[in-house]
């Protein structure tokens, strides 16, 4: 349903463009690859190993990224003020085409926010699913989860659940900015395609090695939220810009 809405929108913006053409703008397209190491995630199979030594599966991967920003070497930037919801199981959501284009030219780097910044992350922002299902309840500070990453792991031959839920614990700004290394590029032609890799293992890898046994009921645990936030900047890398 959301996708239908997006289609309506992009056709709206196209109409606007016809009326008011801004020449030489380039459409950014962001492609998200979800991996464990270099391998594309296969859902629901307990077979991945993290640094701690847990053997685990991925069942759910839903998250928001926002505020993609294209930096120029003169210090100016083009910021796209949008949030985007990704469901790793829905292929239709892993290509993100923002509603605005960026001017052609040279850019020195690309950054974005993981989660939603606290001025926007307020209960009531989304009334429609799937985004509304990301709610972070009012008694826990309100707003929306940045991420629901859930699965199962094997602990001493018992299969247990983990829920890596990140969000604004009691209003704390646990979102973070990711600047992609080596992301200079020249925007030209109709489209620039930026492929980003999200290596799920790194959520538990560095600087903090995390045991999945501790990744349950963490929505009220600000200490763990901060550790995951510190690990989070190492989760994303640039795969290609073309």
């Amino acid at each position, binding site marked *: *349903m959301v996708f239908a*809405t997006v289609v309506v929108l992009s056709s709206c913006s196209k109409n606007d463009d016809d009326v008011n053409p801004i020449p030489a703008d380039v459409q950014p397209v962001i492609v998200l690859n979800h991996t464990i190491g270099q391998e594309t995630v296969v859902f629901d199979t307990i077979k991945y190993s993290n640094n701690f030594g847990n053997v685990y599966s991925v069942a759910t991967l839903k998250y928001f990224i926002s505020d993609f920003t294209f930096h120029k070497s003169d210090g100016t930037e083009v910021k796209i003020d949008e949030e985007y919801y990704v469901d790793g199981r829905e292929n239709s959501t892993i290509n993100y085409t923002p509603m605005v284009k960026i001017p052609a030219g040279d850019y020195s780097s690309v950054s974005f926010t993981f989660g939603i910044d606290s*001025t926007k992350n*307020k209960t*009531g922002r989304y009334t*429609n699913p799937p985004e509304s299902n990301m*709610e972070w*309840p009012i008694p826990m500070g309100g707003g929306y989860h940045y991420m629901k990453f859930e699965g199962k792991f094997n602990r001493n031959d018992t299969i247990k659940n983990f829920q890596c839920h990140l969000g604004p614990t009691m209003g704390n700004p646990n979102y973070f900015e990711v600047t992609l290394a080596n992301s200079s590029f020249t925007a030209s032609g109709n489209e620039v395609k930026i492929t980003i890799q999200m290596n799920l293992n790194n959520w538990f890898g560095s600087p903090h090695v995390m045991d999945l046994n501790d990744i349950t009921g963490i929505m*009220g645990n600000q200490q763990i939220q901060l550790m995951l936030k510190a690990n989070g900047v190492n989760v994303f890398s640039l795969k290609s810009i073309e």
Partner: protein
Amino acid sequence: MFENQEISKVIGSGFWERLLKSMDVLNIVSKSRKWQISSARLLPGLAMFILFSCQKENPSEIPEESYQTTPYELNIPEGFPDMEVPVDNPMTVEGIELGKRLFYDPILSADNTQACATCHNPGFSFTDNGKKFSVGIDGIEGARNAMALINVGWMPELFWDGRRLSLEDQALEPVPNPIEMHQSWPNAMSKLNVHPEYPDLFFKAFETRNIDSTLVTKAIAQFERTLISSNSKWDRYLRGEAQLSLAENKGFEIFFTERGDCFHCHTTILFTDNLFHNNGLDAEFTDKGLFEVTGNENDLGKFKTPTLRNLVFTAPYMHDGRFTTLEEVVNFYSHNVQWSPTIDPLMKKVEQGGVQLTDEEKEYLVAFLKTLTDTTFINNPDYADPFE
């Protein structure tokens, strides 16, 4: 699953901002919600356009009697999602009236004894009178608990296993179902077509006296989309019109934190995410749930999250009606959750049998669940039996 369906949207409006302001919990950000609003403007416009152009396209076929439907303006309560209404079944006052009548009319069953309302009784929030399983006209009992019809207009997938993708499509099933109304559609059609009143009522709603199953299900679906509950104590609390008791408030916190962790599936305003989960009722499954539809091993024992609105009227609980009280339900989530390979990853402390609420916490939680009671819904004259 429903991307290809043409829909129009009826838009809710943002009351959360005002709620939060009134509760003074967080700062308020005024937000444009631009894309939602733009689609709202576009799509209903589109629906209207299609309506009008249909009428104009066949001027020669317009019968002498005047055919004039009254568009029904669906009132989406604040904070509720947009409702998707199929473009080929716009809601009209006449269509809803007809749908209500059909919903209550036993003419749709083979021996004229059973209506939809027999198993979906408004006094029980449209469930089957406290029964565990419903009994069809031939005295055969089904194997699933009749579902409450509350806010069904927001449900993209119908039935416990989600096998039907629209209310129109769902309504095709009970009539011929051998353990329900057990009447072939052609038989139902011939009864309706010779009825002294129905042909005129269908003309008023759909401009034809030629009744078929598609029109019957369209009318029923229109009626069902009006079954909206948004006036429980909890809703009134959100609107600043009611206070929660101390116990209810504590239950509210258990529900909406990871203490009870109910909100992840029974989400926000509808109290359902409309998704499918195995919440750990069984270690092995007699009813395989979503698996019966998808054939996917990963779907074994998954069922649609039911709404928790009006629970006090909808006992017994779960797809098989295994629990008769809310206390039993809360006990289950606290101590009796069963592990199986498809158990939902959201279920906490499964190895201990559940979230381990204390007796006091269980009482609070049940007190909160009872704030979801909406008596204006079950007493709403607009939903009442037109034959009474």
